């Protein structure tokens, strides 16, 4: 009888409760170091002729941290989507604990104990952390016993060293805490294999450190972790056991981390030497181009996020704002670009008051804006690359006559900037949605920088870019400076700010802690100021 009922359950894919027990049985007696996942000959071609994955072999062991590196567009996200059941491979097989599996949807992967934390958070902001963690899991029961669930989740958090306020609404949590919520959610669902896509790109330095510690304590048990990291090589070196490096869809190198150096990793990724420093050219500063007086702004959540900042930028100057995300720099960039209203203060551009000018008026004045949210704000995914580029041209006499777009001119321009910025894509008619994360960022730069004449507002311009591309963007910023533009650079990467800026302003809770010329800025001091410490 029970055999029969089991058969029936299998036939219908199993009820949820049964399935979760199945995965527990499946993972019983897991030993440290055992091969848990093996992928053989994974190949994925996309329409347009891109071979995103070209016969990739991968082997993951229980309890290891296995980093996967590769430059933008190397095929990391594609590989991960295949392992998680979001994409079907054209060729190749996946084995989990020696058993061949085929995923029809992520749900199949989840039920087999694979958890994934996406680069873009998948949480419900209006719900509490606890609600997000238990959502949809049969363990939570029909009538949710909040206290019992909280106890269980809290135990998980303690075990791996995650600090989360479980009763807080997710939108109130920092990026780091939100990520912890995602990981704990996967663990609560019994994940034995955790896939993390660029896990540290949105974390502050302190959060990163805490996060890496938790990774290690997870690897101390049998859980295998696969972080996909694009560019933060020091993290790879400090935390991982083994590294697999992809280039143009192929595995170019597998090695044990203790035998690796930063330079070697970068070379395998990019295929050439990468300098981790850029040279700052000497440029004579010209006249004042932007003057901001006591500017303040209200955030989407309704509180005062920017609390009165005053500064000025001159021609040929890079003004770097260093700060942990969420301290008002986002609002500042938006106010300067004209997409958010100032709640007080004044913005003067070449002596004219532009506090209330529209974004289009600012574009026409020669102000360029690189937004930090490249999918939501920076591009229209359903448009082709050319159309996305045309968004910054359509109003220009050079590209349109009598309201009609001159497509020939636009195409020429698009082709020129796409090759100049090395956007990897089959052609200018490819949809932006099909670009890899880093290539999308290049597209936005290719649209903005060549059209900017006087002032560039760059909000996190190197976020998600590989080492080679980061170097490229920093050099581009310096080129702009050489041409006499003023540049406002907002970054969380202190090294980046120190490397390229002429003037540095650490921002904390909506105010500049100080404004320091680059020659006098010391890394430790600026780093401390980013967390609110005042200069003596």
């Amino acid at each position, binding site marked *: 009888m029970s055999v029969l009922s089991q058969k029936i359950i299998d036939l219908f894919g199993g009820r*949820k409760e049964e399935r979760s027990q199945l995965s527990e049985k499946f993972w019983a007696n897991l030993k440290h170091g055992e091969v848990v996942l093996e992928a053989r000959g994974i190949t994925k071609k996309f329409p347009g002729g891109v071979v995103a994955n070209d016969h990739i072999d991968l082997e993951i062991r229980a309890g290891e941290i296995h980093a996967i590196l590769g430059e933008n567009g190397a095929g990391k996200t594609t590989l991960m989507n295949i392992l998680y059941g979001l994409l079907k491979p054209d060729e190749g097989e996946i084995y989990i604990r020696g058993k061949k599996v085929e995923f029809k949807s*992520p*749900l199949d992967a*989840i039920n087999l104990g694979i958890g994934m934390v996406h680069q873009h958070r*998948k*949480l*419900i*902001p*209006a*719900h509490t952390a606890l*609600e997000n963690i*238990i*959502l*949809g*899991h049969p363990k*939570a*029961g*029909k*009538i*949710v016993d909040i206290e019992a669930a909280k106890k269980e989740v809290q135990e998980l958090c303690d075990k791996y060293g995650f600090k989360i306020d479980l009763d807080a609404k997710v939108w109130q949590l920092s990026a780091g805490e939100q990520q912890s919520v995602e990981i704990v959610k996967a663990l609560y669902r019994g994940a034995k294999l955790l896939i993390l896509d660029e896990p540290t790109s949105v974390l502050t330095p302190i959060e990163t450190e805490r996060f890496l510690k938790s990774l290690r304590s997870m690897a101390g048990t049998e859980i295998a972790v696969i972080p996909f990291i694009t560019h933060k090589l020091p993290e790879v070196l400090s935390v991982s056991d083994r590294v697999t490096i992809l280039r143009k869809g192929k595995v170019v190198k597998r090695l044990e981390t203790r035998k690796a150096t930063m330079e070697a990793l970068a070379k395998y990724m990019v295929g050439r030497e990468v300098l981790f420093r850029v040279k700052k050219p000497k440029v004579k500063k010209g006249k004042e181009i932007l003057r901001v007086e006591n500017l303040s702004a209200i955030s989407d959540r*309704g509180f005062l996020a920017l609390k009165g900042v005053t500064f000025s930028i001159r021609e040929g100057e890079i003004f770097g704002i260093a700060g942990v995300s969420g301290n008002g720099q986002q609002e500042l960039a938006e106010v300067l670009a004209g997409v958010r209203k100032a709640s007080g203060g004044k913005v003067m551009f070449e002596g004219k008051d532009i506090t209330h000018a529209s974004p289009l008026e600012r574009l026409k004045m020669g102000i360029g804006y690189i937004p930090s949210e490249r999918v939501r704000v920076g591009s229209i995914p359903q448009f082709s690359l050319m159309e996305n580029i045309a968004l910054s041209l359509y109003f220009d006499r050079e590209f349109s006559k009598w309201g009609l777009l001159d497509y020939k001119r636009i195409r020429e321009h698009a082709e020129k900037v796409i090759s100049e910025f090395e956007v990897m894509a089959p052609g200018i008619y490819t949809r932006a949605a099909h670009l890899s994360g880093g290539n999308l960022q290049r597209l936005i730069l290719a649209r903005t920088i060549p059209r900017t004449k006087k002032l560039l507002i760059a909000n996190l311009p190197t976020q998600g870019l590989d080492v080679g591309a980061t170097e490229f963007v920093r050099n581009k910023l310096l080129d702009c400076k050489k041409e006499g533009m003023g540049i406002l650079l907002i970054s969380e990467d202190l090294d980046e700010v120190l490397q390229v800026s002429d003037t540095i302003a650490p921002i904390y809770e909506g105010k500049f802690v100080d404004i320091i010329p680059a020659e006098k800025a010391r890394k430790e001091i600026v780093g401390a100021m980013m967390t609110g410490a005042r200069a003596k």
Partner: protein
Amino acid sequence: MWPFIARCLEVATIFLLAGIGELLDQRSGVLNVGIEGLMLFGAASGFITALRTGSLLVGFIVGAALGAVFGFLHGLFSITLKVDQVVSAMGIWIFAMGFVTFWMDKYSGPLRIPSPRIGGLLSPMFFFAVVLVLVVWFILSKTHIGLKIRSVGEDPSVAEATGINVVKIRYLCVIIGGLLGGLAGAFMCITYLGLWSHIPTQGMGWIALALVLFSMWRPPILLAGALIFGVIWQFGIAPETLIPGFGLPLGVCRMFPFIATIIVLAVISTPRFRRKWGLAKPAALGQPYIKE
């Protein structure tokens, strides 16, 4: 005095039944602005059934069932076919106005079957509605299915990724919402009015909709709002029972609930309220769920 209060509570019952259904609906992310239409269908079918069979209970059941059918239809349009939710619901409302008039106005007149009333004053349906509000509140805040409903209303793609069947949950909610809208209409026509006259709902469905928005999607606030509007509505119909010799013409009095609605909607649109309201609003409300 007591008869007046009982009448107020019966009006509140109508708002509660329709409102709690709509609230559930909206919590799952589906906006159904056509409650007025659902109520009209519920009222018409419930009234004619009660008239023909002589049974009030069968009337309620048929009214609720037809409401559920139109709730399902709204689901079919807005969930499966991904029509704009406002367009679909407005279509149902306009269809209801025309069809019900054509179908029912020849039966205009009293039902002549007295509804059971506790102490000869108040229909037991009131207590049913209050219990229903508490049940919905409990389900939404304390149960797993409630959490799933809220998640679907906040972000269906996240819910889907967690293994929740978004389409199933949304259908469940629109059908229950429709059922309660139909029941509200049947109750209004059979018990509260006890007669059919041209478009008997007279905008009650729209007030219920406004109450849901005003409640910030919380059942207890909806309960309070329904009681207040019950009093305003009843006062507008029979002001002299409360204030003998009340001087304003009846037409003006009838406007009270709608003026109050406009005031409420204006108040919740002020910047201070709007922010709170924006946070409480189910984030995916009104958006069809399109899988990638």
